[in-house]
């Protein structure tokens, strides 16, 4: 896959210097095109061809996520991203408070590049065989919660919700997870899905990846405990599917349940969730 890298300029924090270094190393290791964020901001035309010919990797330094926000503001399709601050946490390294690249910064940049090169070589997270969407029939009837000119749909049955607007639909010992129509509308168009890793085991209310829109970064709070057995590759490549069909084709992950039905005690049924949504919509 041919790639282009858009990174932080690296002139505000040490994490930024690492992002910038990772971009340079991606150019060396994987022949990626480097996109200068300042120049891109000044002249999209300069990079039109590069963007048309390559998949875009975004490397942000810190959670301000300037590079991501720039890409979003220009409506660029992001294929992969890395947040150096997160990579730093999982590496256990510490960075010196300087903008010059130090030994640890260089090591971290290399780890990031190795991870990217590896993920580019591996095929996209596949849907394991035998878990086609036909096993989960589409949602049936909906309850409708209205507020002002908005309408929020909630499937009448088969779905359970946590108060963080994430649904679970169990079927035997597996379950699908996604976000509610209410949350999908609050986030507006979702432009990036950071899905959890396959085989990740998660506790109830643990983190199952994040979704990003121009308005927010949303943490998917697991409604149930389990192990990730499938990631919906269609929403990873086309995140607005979540906006279009939040309870059906917009499912995010499939879990093997580890503590059902006990987990259900802490979840809301459709009627209770409808009340919660009404309350949230009135407060917002």
């Amino acid at each position, binding site marked *: 896959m041919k790639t282009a890298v858009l990174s932080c300029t690296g002139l505000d*924090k040490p994490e930024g210097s690492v992002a910038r270094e990772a971009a340079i190393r991606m150019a060396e290791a994987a022949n990626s095109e480097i996109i200068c964020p300042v120049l891109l901001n000044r002249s999209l035309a300069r990079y039109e061809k590069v963007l048309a010919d390559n998949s875009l990797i975004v490397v942000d330094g810190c959670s301000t996520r300037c590079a991501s926000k720039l890409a979003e503001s220009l409506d660029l399709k992001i294929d992969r991203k890395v947040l150096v601050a997160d990579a730093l946490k999982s590496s256990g390294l510490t960075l010196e408070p300087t903008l010059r690249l130090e030994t640890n910064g260089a090591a971290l940049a290399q780890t990031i590049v190795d991870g990217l090169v590896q993920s580019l070589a591996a095929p996209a997270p596949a849907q394991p065989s035998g878990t086609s969407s036909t096993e989960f029939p589409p949602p049936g009837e909906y309850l409708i919660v209205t507020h002002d000119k908005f309408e929020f749909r909630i499937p009448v049955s088969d779905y359970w919700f946590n108060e*963080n607007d994430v649904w679970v639909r169990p079927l035997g010992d597996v379950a699908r997870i996604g976000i509610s129509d209410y949350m999908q509308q609050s986030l507006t168009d979702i432009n990036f899905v950071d899905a959890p890793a396959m085989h990740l085991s998660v506790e109830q209310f643990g983190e199952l990846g994040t979704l990003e829109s121009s308005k927010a970064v949303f943490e998917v709070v697991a409604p149930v405990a389990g192990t990730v057995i499938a990631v919906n590759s269609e929403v990873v490549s086309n995140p607005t599917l979540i906006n279009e069909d939040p309870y059906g084709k917009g499912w995010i992950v499939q879990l093997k349940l580890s503590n059902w039905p006990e987990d259900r005690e802490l979840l809301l049924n459709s009627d209770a969730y409808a009340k919660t949504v009404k309350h949230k919509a009135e407060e917002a």
Partner: protein
Amino acid sequence: MSEATFMGVPREKIVWHPTIDYQKCTFCMECANFCPHRVFEQREGDRRLVVANPNNCVVFCRACSKTCGPDALSFPDKQATIAQIKQMREQVSVQ
């Protein structure tokens, strides 16, 4: 008014809100502009931002910390909070 509950427990009994590390905060106000629940408030003086309404914070949400460049916002431990909530739910159901 005790209408606000989370998982059947009165909201004010659950400790869940961001804490600002004033050594790190640059008062960029990204978090305050981001959160729709009026958890943060801007003030005069040195500490120009405070967590004024901790109980407005949505339990288990950590979204504002994902907008904070200097990583100045922290939250309680989730598992500990869940354990706490479960315990309170049991007390409520016994009464």
